[in-house]
């Protein structure tokens, strides 16, 4: 189903059930007493430094460890599979290339491939703490609970 068609279908369906949906009535405003009580409760945190209760004084944001573990859990299986395939190619590549290219070029190409794979792995793992930090901060901003 195309997006436009779905939008149109949702619009028409909403129109059809609107009278029924409108019967779901709720109070239209918060009681004054509730608002006053909320203001009184909010004064304490307003005087204190802005900080959520679960926050520590650590330089790392809350949830950093959890995010890092999550990212490691996702990347590690991929890294293991990549390492296994690297070992396989390390064994096979010189032979395969040797049949097509001069020995020195085949060795150079294999070395370049291995170096590239190692660089990629280093970049991936080296950047994980940054991604974990970014994700932890984003969650704190968006889900301050």
């Amino acid at each position: 189903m195309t997006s436009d068609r779905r939008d149109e279908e949702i619009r028409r369906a909403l129109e059809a059930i609107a009278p029924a949906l409108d019967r779901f009535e709720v109070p239209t405003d918060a009681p004054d007493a509730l608002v006053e009580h909320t203001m009184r409760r909010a004064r304490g945190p307003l005087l204190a430094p802005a900080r959520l209760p679960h926050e520590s004084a650590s330089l790392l944001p809350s949830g950093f460890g959890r995010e890092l573990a999550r990212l490691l859990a996702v990347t590690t299986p991929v890294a293991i599979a990549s390492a296994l395939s690297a070992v396989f190619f390390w064994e096979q590549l010189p032979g395969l290339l040797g049949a097509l290219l001069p020995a020195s070029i085949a060795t150079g190409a294999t070395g370049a491939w291995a170096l590239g794979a190692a660089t990629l792995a280093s970049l991936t793992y080296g950047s994980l703490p940054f991604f974990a930090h970014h994700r932890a901060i984003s969650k704190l901003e968006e889900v301050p609970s």
Partner: protein
Amino acid sequence: MAAQALIPSLPVETDEDLMVQLQAGQEDALSALMNRWRAPLYSFLNRRVGDAADDVFQESWIRVVRARDRFDPKRKFSTWLFQIANNLCRDRWRRLSSRGRALEAFKRERVATHVPDEAPEFRDTDPMRERVLSLPEKQREVLILRYYEDRSEAEIAEILGIPKGTVKSRMHTAVRSLRETLAAEGDTE
């Protein structure tokens, strides 16, 4: 008329301006924000969590104050506020045991069908309340934000932290489900 023309019109402070003032610790800014958003937030919470709306309303504003330094004034305040409130609703739902959820469903059923003494404001409520509240959590939050709060798909996506396409598909499923329920019950209005 001439006198009115001489009075310079005061610039209306945006919600985001007020948040900047709140970040500086100004209580008046919180009061102004609360007055602007008390009604929409309260009706949203009533539709989301029913009887627990008062508690979540208070907690939402406390969270706004505690997390004020993390608010980016380039963002829309109301989206951030509803995001906080919706996350509190989700937390509450997760905390409820299955027994608690069943009890809530039972209470809603009573409110919708048995005219309870303890909820006089809902005496004339149609079972539609029960139908909406019985939708799966993920569909219900999208439907309430879209239909009752008139939020755009982009805002809903930001509030819920999901792609716009997912908002559409959840909305589609929720509306279809309600339509089918209404048709099955012969509610053609």
